């Protein structure tokens, strides 16, 4: 981080002192020796758990720079804190674009925060790449051609669960436990997409706030309503609570958990390994604490990277594998750019990625993009918890075609 900041200060000083020296044909944020990339994340405040993504990405770019950079240019990754507050995201993004003059924006965190700058970046035609949010509105090339997401949308994930559930239990009574924000609401929307008019009759909803200490009351309500299936769109701390509580009260619904909260180390172990037996999810990432990947070459590559570039990082935190995946995608785009780092070309390359494997993604799950399809990761695979590890079953699912 420190090296980065010095580079940032130098970069800023340079751009302030010599604004008109850059030749007109030169792309913004790109010089003969440097490419400037901007990002925002919650480095402070209650959402700062995600700040490790920025830490991981900065380390990845440091590795690239150690290896000689991209097309002879060093990457200057500038990330600012927005505290997960949309007005500050706008302020920091404008600082990146107008003052630091970055070439493009990469992996900014959050749905409301990115919403606040959605129009700004598209009006100014600044590539707004691979956002750290699973909302599905980022894949809208017709209205917002300069914005592209990365991970599979929560809504698609919920559709997969609903379809699988209908196959298994056509007359189910479904409980839907979700966090009352854009993340949780997407699970409601996805289930509604599949059930359509039957939604109200088949589904019992229970929401919770991020500030609630426990979700016991919600689980009791859903059980009392006679639900025999449960889909959860909740963050890890509540996921661990839910898995444990459902087991403890002897309720045995067919239970689906968002892939945000299925890490072995941070959810399954705290909840109790045996309490989650039978839990279903649909993931695209390898989980670093899953023994199944102990000898996997891709995960070895990641561990090697962590050991050398983030020695103080918490290995159980799956934001680091996320960062590795999205960072690898970004580097692929930069390599594809050749020697032309104009905003137009960066965007063209970001939307023309041929299907490729990434070290930290499940076998068969590809990263890809086309000018008409901005869903970069569109494949997932269902998996079931067997008490020790996640067992994948069925084929790789594309979109919501179970």
């Amino acid at each position, binding site marked *: 981080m420190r090296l980065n900041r010095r580079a940032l200060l130098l970069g800023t000083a340079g751009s302030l002192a010599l604004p008109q020296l850059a030749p007109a044909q030169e792309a913004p944020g790109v010089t003969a020796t440097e490419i400037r990339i901007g990002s925002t994340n919650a480095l402070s405040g209650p959402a700062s758990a995600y700040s490790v993504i920025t830490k991981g990405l900065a380390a990845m770019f440091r590795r690239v720079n150690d290896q000689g950079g991209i097309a002879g240019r060093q990457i200057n990754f500038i990330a600012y*804190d927005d505290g997960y507050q949309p007005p500050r995201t706008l302020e920091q993004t404008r600082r990146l674009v107008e003052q630091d003059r970055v070439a493009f924006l990469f992996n900014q965190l959050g749905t409301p925060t990115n919403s606040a700058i959605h129009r700004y970046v598209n009006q100014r035609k600044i590539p707004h790449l691979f956002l750290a949010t699973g909302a599905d509105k980022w894949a809208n090339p017709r209205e917002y051609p300069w914005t592209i997401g990365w991970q599979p949308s929560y809504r698609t994930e919920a559709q997969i669960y609903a379809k699988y559930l209908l196959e298994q239990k056509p007359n189910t009574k479904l409980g839907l436990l979700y966090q009352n924000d854009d993340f949780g609401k997407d699970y409601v929307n996805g289930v509604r997409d599949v059930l359509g008019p039957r939604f109200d009759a088949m589904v019992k909803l229970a929401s919770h706030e991020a500030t609630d200490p426990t979700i016991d009351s919600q689980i009791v309500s859903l059980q009392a309503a006679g639900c025999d299936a449960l889909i959860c769109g909740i963050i890890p701390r509540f996921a661990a609570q839910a898995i444990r509580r459902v087991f403890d009260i002897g309720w045995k619904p067919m239970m689906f958990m968002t892939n945000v909260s299925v890490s072995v180390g941070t959810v399954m172990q705290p909840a109790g390994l045996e309490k989650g037996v039978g839990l279903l999810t649909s993931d695209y990432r390898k989980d670093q604490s899953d023994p199944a990947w102990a000898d996997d070459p891709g995960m070895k590559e990641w561990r090697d990277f962590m050991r050398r570039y983030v020695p103080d990082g918490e290995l159980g935190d799956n934001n680091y594998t996320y960062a590795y995946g999205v960072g690898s995608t970004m580097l692929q785009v930069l390599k594809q750019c050749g020697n032309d780092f104009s905003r137009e070309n960066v965007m063209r390359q970001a939307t023309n990625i041929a299907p490729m494997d990434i070290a930290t993604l499940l076998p068969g799950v590809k990263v890809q993009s086309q000018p008409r399809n901005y869903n970069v990761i569109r494949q997932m695979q269902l998996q079931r918890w067997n008490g020790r590890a996640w067992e994948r079953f069925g084929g790789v699912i594309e979109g919501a075609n179970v």
Partner: protein
Amino acid sequence: MSATDRIALPLRRPATALAAWQRSALVLAGLAAALAPLWLLESFHLFQLTMAVIMALAVLGLNIVTGYNGQISLGHGAFFAVGAYATAILMSHLDWSFWATLPVSAVVCGLIGYGVGFPALRLGGLYLALTTFSLAVAVPQILKHKSIEGWTGGVQGLFLVKPDPPAFLPLTPDQWMYCMALIVSSVCFLLAWNLIRGRIGRALMATRDHPIAAEAMGMDIAALKTQAFAVSAMITGLAGSLSAVAVEYVAPDSFSFALSINLFVGMVVGGVASILGSLFGGLFVLFVPNIAEAISKAAPGVIYGVILIAFLFLLPDGFAGLLRRLAARLRRASP
């Protein structure tokens, strides 16, 4: 002994008489200082300054009820949110012009502030602080409730567009936004100045410092306190309206309790019961987090906290306190 009794602040010192030419020179200098950034700053810095002016206005609102009237509010972000949503809803659903939404926003916030003022009458110091704080925490939850989702846009929020500058002014939208923030804020600051300098201001402060004596003197404390809440909410709500157009987006997450905390911090570092201090407070809450970040990317929140505490140690009565002391020294130096 309630907490309010212990806010021992000096009553405003008697205004030193300034000659008419001195006063107009001051006004002109202030005007020039306020308008100069229009040409001196590029658009990003102008945007930051606009946001700082908006925060200063919100802090001014808080200062009226907490600083001058001694009713501790940790929930003014709620009024800010209501003002922002009033403007956003009218502009994005009903295509109103920005200026037309201001009176509505002020009235709505004023009414809600008046309503909050009533339970506040019964709650002293700490109880009021915590009750208003819970209001700030509850607001995002209410904003995304499904019964009003059609109007508020739920968790997705609402988008709106900054008004274009009038055709006869050669300004960019960013410059015009700054002008609008300046106009609304100046009017509110002037009104607040007049309010505080006059009979009402003295009554507010008397209620704060010696409530029983004030009542014995025949002041209607209940009316004063609820009205102070209403005026305060109105001003903070107008700041919210400005922020909605400046950011061109409102969402429940923009108005978390962190906002209320920020306003409170702005008031304390600027100087409790000071109009000029509110201005400084607005600048502080906008720019100091960026300074903190420049010092450490790893934990900017920690640095911000350290700066805040250090500032309060050095200037326990805020920036305005420093000004007061400097002015006193100047007066002593030149008899």
